[in-house]
């Protein structure tokens, strides 16, 4: 009897969904809108993807559903209706009760989302305990069940852990379990898979989809990556500069994207099945208060006409359920997913090896993390190192770059043996091999100007001085698509993508023959990733620079690399030309990686 009720509860539980009407959030004490005019419906059991570049206002919309805004901003208009109640006009006490129990939130950054001083088990049951739901045994049992549901251990030892004792994927799943524990009706997930590798990402996404289906929960899934949304969302809302630019069922958005911005986003995404010439979107998302008149996208739009600069476009319905905010909708032709595809790198191209690694073993203290890795890199070629987190990609690239010196094996550069650490290598060798780091926020000194940063390698290697060096800097900035007006900006003023370009320009200033790029796009928006890939491809063709490209994104590999080395637990499990490995993978592990990768093609 009881079983049947709970069964039927699972199956039949009907929620009314959530309706957002005319939502606006503005900066406190001003009329500057962060987001405005947001109309969105989450139907029961439906997953809606909210997509846009960094700064477009996705998180702001997401937290508004819980009547929350960050310090400095406030919800200024609109309604969020859940079962005939407007969440935004409820008294405080009821809002608090509603949070967690009816609308739950899974935060953006897994690393910082759990309290570092409270044990996992306690954080999981905290809300139930405060509200006096159940007994302490039933709460503990619920916590264990929740952890099992998301595929985590549920023993006492695990419950007693702190956040720092979990991996990124585990933290994210704990946050998911915590959000699901009170069985909410609506779930807001803010980029819950940023920084996770594909396998963990797939697991988190599957878990989420499964839970939503089982409990009839509606979810708003926030991300900057359309490819992720392609696999889980029923409908997609594309946001730009604080407004919804396009809204429609998933298949419509991917088959017939009608807003130039949506198309631009799609053009920047690499495909698993075929190499593409990736393109970025020029410029960047304007911040609140700096948004252009007329259509907010007009300064970056490829289809802009005069009218766009003066007249504000409205969100118009162009087909059932499909709404677009653009004056020229219907005039700009159709979009084809195959635009921009290019032939895969030719596997039979003659190769002139410049760098070769043989029998590389790398250690951290007594622990060996890389086992007998052998590969080589030819002139004007990109070789990708791919693997899950912890597979040793970065360790290998750091050893090759001479940043880590506890290794054995041989490393030859143009037939000469290279010393273990960069310090023992000749200045000339150091100049010719440049390393670019994963995190552009950490790798540039925020107080130096762009000019100082890019000039430094020229002075260091005696390539240019004074006026000549400045001219070179301007030229390099042009190559990485930064305007000369930025010459005297401090690095702290730049966005992530701009910083990464500065880091690339700094590497180029040394006139290298080999660049080692460690996950250089993983901290960036897909649109910025597109423009950086475009840039690197140009450099490879024009200058014949070779690159060792570390990443966990297989689709990106297809578009950028000629050869790929698949790593698992410190060993190469499969390697070869990109098209061969990805179209006819021999190893089970490669197949798993491929099937876990989000794809839109």
């Amino acid at each position, binding site marked *: 009897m009881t079983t049947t009720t709970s069964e039927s509860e699972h199956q039949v539980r009907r929620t009314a969904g959530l309706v957002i009407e005319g939502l606006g959030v503005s900066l406190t004490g001003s009329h500057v809108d962060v987001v405005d005019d947001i109309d969105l419906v989450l139907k029961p059991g439906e997953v809606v993807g909210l997509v846009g570049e960094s700064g477009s206002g996705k998180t702001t919309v997401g*937290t508004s559903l*819980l009547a*929350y805004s*960050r*310090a400095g901003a406030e919800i200024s208009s609109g309604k969020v209706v859940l079962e005939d109640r407007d969440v935004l006009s409820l008294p405080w006490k009821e809002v*608090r*009760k*509603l*949070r*967690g*129990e009816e609308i*739950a*939130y899974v*935060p*953006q*950054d897994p690393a*910082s*989302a*759990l*309290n*570092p*001083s*409270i044990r996992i088990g306690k954080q999981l049951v*905290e*809300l139930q305990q*405060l509200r006096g739901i159940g007994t302490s045994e039933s709460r503990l049992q619920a916590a264990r069940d929740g952890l099992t549901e998301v595929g985590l251990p549920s023993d006492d*030892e695990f419950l*007693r*852990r*702190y956040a*720092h*004792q*979990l*991996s*990124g*994927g585990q933290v994210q799943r704990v*946050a998911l379990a*915590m959000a699901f524990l009170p069985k909410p009706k609506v779930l807001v997930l803010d980029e819950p898979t940023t920084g996770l590798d594909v396998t963990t990402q797939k697991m988190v996404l599957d878990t989420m989809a499964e839970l939503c289906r089982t409990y009839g929960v509606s979810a708003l899934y926030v991300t900057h990556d359309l490819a992720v949304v392609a696999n889980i969302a029923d409908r997609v809302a594309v946001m730009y500069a604080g407004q919804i630019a396009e809204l429609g069922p998933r298949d419509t958005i991917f088959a017939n994207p009608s807003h130039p911005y949506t198309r631009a986003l799609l053009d920047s995404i690499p495909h698993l099945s075929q190499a593409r010439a990736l393109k970025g979107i020029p410029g960047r998302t304007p911040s609140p208060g700096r948004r252009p008149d007329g259509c907010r996208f007009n300064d970056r739009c490829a289809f802009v006409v005069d009218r766009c600069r003066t007249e504000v476009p409205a969100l118009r319905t162009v087909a059932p359920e499909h709404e677009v905010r653009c004056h020229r909708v219907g005039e700009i032709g159709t979009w084809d997913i195959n635009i921009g595809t290019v032939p895969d790198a030719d596997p039979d191209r003659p190769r002139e090896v410049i760098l070769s690694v043989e029998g590389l073993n790398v250690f951290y203290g007594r622990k060996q993390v890389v086992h007998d890795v052998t590969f080589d890199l030819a002139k004007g070629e990109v070789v990708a190192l791919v693997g899950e*987190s*912890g597979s040793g990609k970065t360790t290998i690239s750091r050893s090759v770059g001479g940043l880590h010196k506890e290794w054995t094996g041989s490393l030859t550069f143009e037939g000469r043996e290279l010393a273990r650490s960069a310090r023992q290598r000749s200045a000339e060798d150091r100049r010719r091999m440049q390393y670019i780091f994963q995190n552009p926020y950490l790798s540039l000194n925020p107080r130096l100007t762009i000019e100082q940063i890019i000039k430094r390698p020229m002075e260091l290697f005696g390539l240019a001085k004074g006026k000549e060096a400045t001219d070179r800097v301007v030229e390099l900035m042009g190559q990485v698509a930064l305007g000369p007006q930025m010459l005297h900006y401090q690095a702290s003023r730049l966005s992530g993508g701009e910083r990464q370009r500065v880091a690339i320009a700094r590497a180029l200033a040394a006139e290298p023959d080999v660049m080692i790029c460690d996950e250089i796009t993983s901290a960036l928006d897909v649109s910025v990733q597109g423009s950086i890939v475009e840039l690197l491809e140009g450099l490879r063709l024009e200058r014949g620079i070779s690159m060792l490209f570390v990443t966990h994104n297989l689709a990106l590999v297809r578009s950028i690399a000629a050869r790929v080395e698949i790593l698992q637990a410190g060993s190469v499990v499969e390697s070869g030309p990109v098209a061969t490995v990805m179209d006819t993978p021999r190893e089970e592990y490669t197949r798993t990686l491929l099937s876990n990768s989000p794809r839109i093609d």
Partner: protein
Amino acid sequence: MEVAPPKGRSGGAAWGLWLARRLGLAVLTLWLVSVVVFLATAALGDPVRAILGRDYDSNVARRQQLEAQLGVGDSIVSRYVDWLGGLVRGDFGTSLANQLPVGTQISSTVANTLVLVLLSALVMIPLAFGIAMVSAHYRRKRPDTVIQTILLALAGVPEFVTGILLVAVFSTSVFNVLPAVTLVAPGASPWDEPKGMVLPVATLVVAVTPYVSRIVRATLLEVLDSDYVELARLKGIPEPVVMRKHALLNAIVPGIQVIALQLAWLAGGVVLVETLFSYPGVGKQLVDAVRNHDVPVVQALSMIIAGVYIVVNLVADLLSILLTPRARTAISS
């Protein structure tokens, strides 16, 4: 990527090792301090001449007695070894001023000062945290600005000015409810007359609270902006619980560090306050001893102050580690 969980049993040994290392370090510091204290007091010049002044030439018997007591003829090394040996045995030597053992003479003043400092700490810690919490709760709004302005002003006022103002208000013209000086009958303790403790404690509290409070507020604000506090709010945790459980817990460690610094400062820096209120504590005694060239008393008090300093810091470090899971699990695994 899996991180090893803290190991239950072998953790004990790791903790023992850590503690032993820290204690060893503390002893080493104390020993270095003893060298410095000894050299500094020995360098003050000939203490016998200083004590006897004009009597130096006339009172030969007293001179010889003092010289014997201080071991003037011996080398500085052997005098140091003698003195250190005494310290280790708990023998602080004999006072030059009144020929009484230093130990008995300073024990009551040390106790008096410890009570003064501990009382001040007991009042100051909750007060400082409370103010910081209120301030952080109203961040950058009126109440916060007012509190911060007052704290900033208080932090700028030297403690003797605070003391004089308190005396002026509470024991003279305005109210005259509290005694201005601490009168202690021989053999009695200052806390036998609780009213007399109020102003000294209040002065110290006013001197120290602003620093602690401002640091704790700054940390709290940082923590309140963190993602996990945002998540706690979005989870529907009531604000007071967010503040107490999620924010305070993570702001307490930097708080402990400033409190330790301030307590250590109190242990040595009460001189002014004790002098002002004639409070029979270490500070006052130290001033008297220096004035009388009573070398053994100066040495003993300096060592005790240094000892308190070291112990307070050790305890603060221990507490910080115990309250920071990352540091704690790093030790036990």
